[in-house]
């Protein structure tokens, strides 16, 4: 039996040696002549490529336009592009659609409330068909100078004035910092119990330092209240205002004799974001097509901004391959200029090198807001 025990010990030792040889060290995934590791990355559909604060550093309490560039890296359009700023008070801005490979530059109104270095993040989101897509936030630090700062209680002091796109004042948003267009219904928030009801005598509005309007019946509307059933608001036609920044000073006069005066600043945009770069084979710009993604043959072409209606107070800079090609201050905005009879002048394609060319338009709006659009075409 002694021999049996000896063989059993040999057997156990041999098993331990064999099994010990093939056992992987803790955490190892592979042993042998080679191994592999899989890498994975999610490619952003949208990329924040630049955040540009105003050239002049803002003071605490200033409303300024921060320009955010967002590139669409999908091979298809992204709809309802929305750009926002985190880190300061902002209401964000929306662009309708960004084509594949295009970069949209969006002016986002931002309040800087506190003096000192302020880090802001730009976010962007949109719709790829029905699928939401978003960009990883980009960051920038803005040096904010000394200033009066923002009101202590924005809900009472800064934001009681709101805007709606409907006469019934539905879905109101704070007017301050908002980009508006078309008919806007501006009113003092009737839902704010601190300001409405029996405490307020009337509200006085003054737009851009012009004529004062008054409403003494809640809800207090900038353009007055219709006598129709339901007392719908009368609208402010922003198309008669220049695109750019505007200010409403409104004074709430309380029944006790005290007043509260506040300011709301907003941006009117009735054209720049709705326009695109188009081309036509006709000087009358008929049967035009989007320039972006086009292949241009022949000797000449007519490139212009469509629709051709003017953007009040705007100048339009055309750039080709990054260099300023022309500045137009009157509509229609033509890449090669406009003839006396209103026709577009031709852009000569002869001699243009083969390959891709990019045309950029910059709409420079009053108030320091710039909206940029790009279109690329190929010369086969």
């Amino acid at each position, binding site marked *: 039996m002694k021999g049996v025990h000896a063989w059993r010990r040999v057997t156990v030792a041999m098993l331990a040696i064999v099994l010990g040889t093939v056992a992987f060290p803790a955490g190892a995934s592979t042993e042998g002549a080679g191994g*592999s590791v899989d890498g994975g990355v999610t490619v952003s559909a949208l990329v924040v490529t630049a955040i540009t604060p105003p050239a002049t550093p803002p003071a605490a309490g200033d409303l300024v336009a921060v320009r955010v560039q967002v590139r669409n890296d999908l091979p298809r359009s992204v709809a309802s592009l929305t750009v926002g700023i985190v880190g300061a008070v902002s209401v964000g801005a929306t662009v309708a659609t960004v084509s594949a490979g295009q970069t949209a530059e969006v002016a986002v109104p931002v309040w800087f409330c506190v003096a000192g270095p302020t880090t802001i993040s730009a976010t962007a989101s949109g719709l790829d068909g029905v699928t939401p897509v978003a960009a990883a936030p980009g960051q920038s630090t803005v040096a904010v100078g000394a200033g009066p700062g923002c009101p202590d209680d924005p809900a009472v002091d800064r934001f009681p004035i709101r805007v709606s796109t409907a006469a019934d004042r539905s879905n109101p948003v704070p007017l301050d910092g908002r980009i508006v267009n078309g008919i806007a219904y501006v009113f003092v928030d009737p839902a704010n119990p601190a300001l409405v009801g029996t405490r307020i005598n009337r509200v006085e509005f003054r737009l851009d330092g012009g004529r004062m309007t008054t409403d003494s019946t809640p809800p207090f509307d900038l353009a007055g209240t219709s006598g129709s059933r339901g007392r719908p608001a009368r609208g402010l036609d922003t198309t008669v205002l220049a695109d750019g920044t505007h200010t409403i000073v409104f004074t709430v006069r309380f029944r006790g004799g005290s007043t509260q005066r506040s300011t709301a600043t907003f941006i009117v945009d009735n054209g720049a974001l709705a326009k695109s770069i188009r081309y036509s084979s006709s000087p009358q710009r008929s049967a035009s097509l989007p320039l972006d993604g086009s292949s241009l043959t022949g000797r000449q072409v007519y490139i212009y901004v469509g629709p051709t209606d003017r953007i009040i107070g705007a100048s339009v800079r055309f750039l080709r391959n990054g260099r300023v090609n022309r500045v137009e201050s009157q509509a229609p905005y033509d890449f090669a200029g406009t003839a006396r009879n209103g026709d577009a002048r031709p852009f000569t394609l002869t001699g243009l090198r083969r390959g891709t060319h990019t045309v950029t338009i910059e709409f420079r709006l009053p108030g320091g807001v710039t909206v940029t659009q790009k279109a690329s075409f190929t010369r086969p």
Partner: protein
Amino acid sequence: MRTARLMLLAVAGLCAAALPSLAAPFLARAQTADPSGPDRSVDATFTPTSPPGPCITVGGPATVDFGQLGFGSGFALGNASTVVASCGPPDRVQDVLASVSDATALGIVQWTPFDCSPNPSARCVTPTNGFAYLLGGVSLTATPRLIVPAGRVDHQLRLPAPGSVGGGEVVRMTVTILGVLR
């Protein structure tokens, strides 16, 4: 004694079936040992041991995630490292080489590796549809390239230039690490 011998042979056979190359030396040695005396014989079979081959362990997660990146962004560090260790014969020098595959999304090749050497730094600018992959600071291509022989290595990825395909997709590539005896 016969019981012991049978048990031994059974175990050895089991080991040989499971791991023939590793068990072969032990099996051969066991079969030549005959404790039954000079008047008994056992047919002995020798399996020549092959020369020791290259051996490395590739440790750490089998997948490295780089999160969400945009075209044109700089090098991004993966969420895990890989530990490469040698388990080859101690009397031989072993090189460790690595390569990276094309990057694919949904089975379709999107990008090919771009060689950033000899300057695998932030100044390495990737082209359209070309990505850069650094393993332990060494720029990988489709051809195996010498990397640090052992230790913990980081994974870094730089996406292709703007205008590349694959936007909005989950893109994957495979890093293959090989041990080669000199």
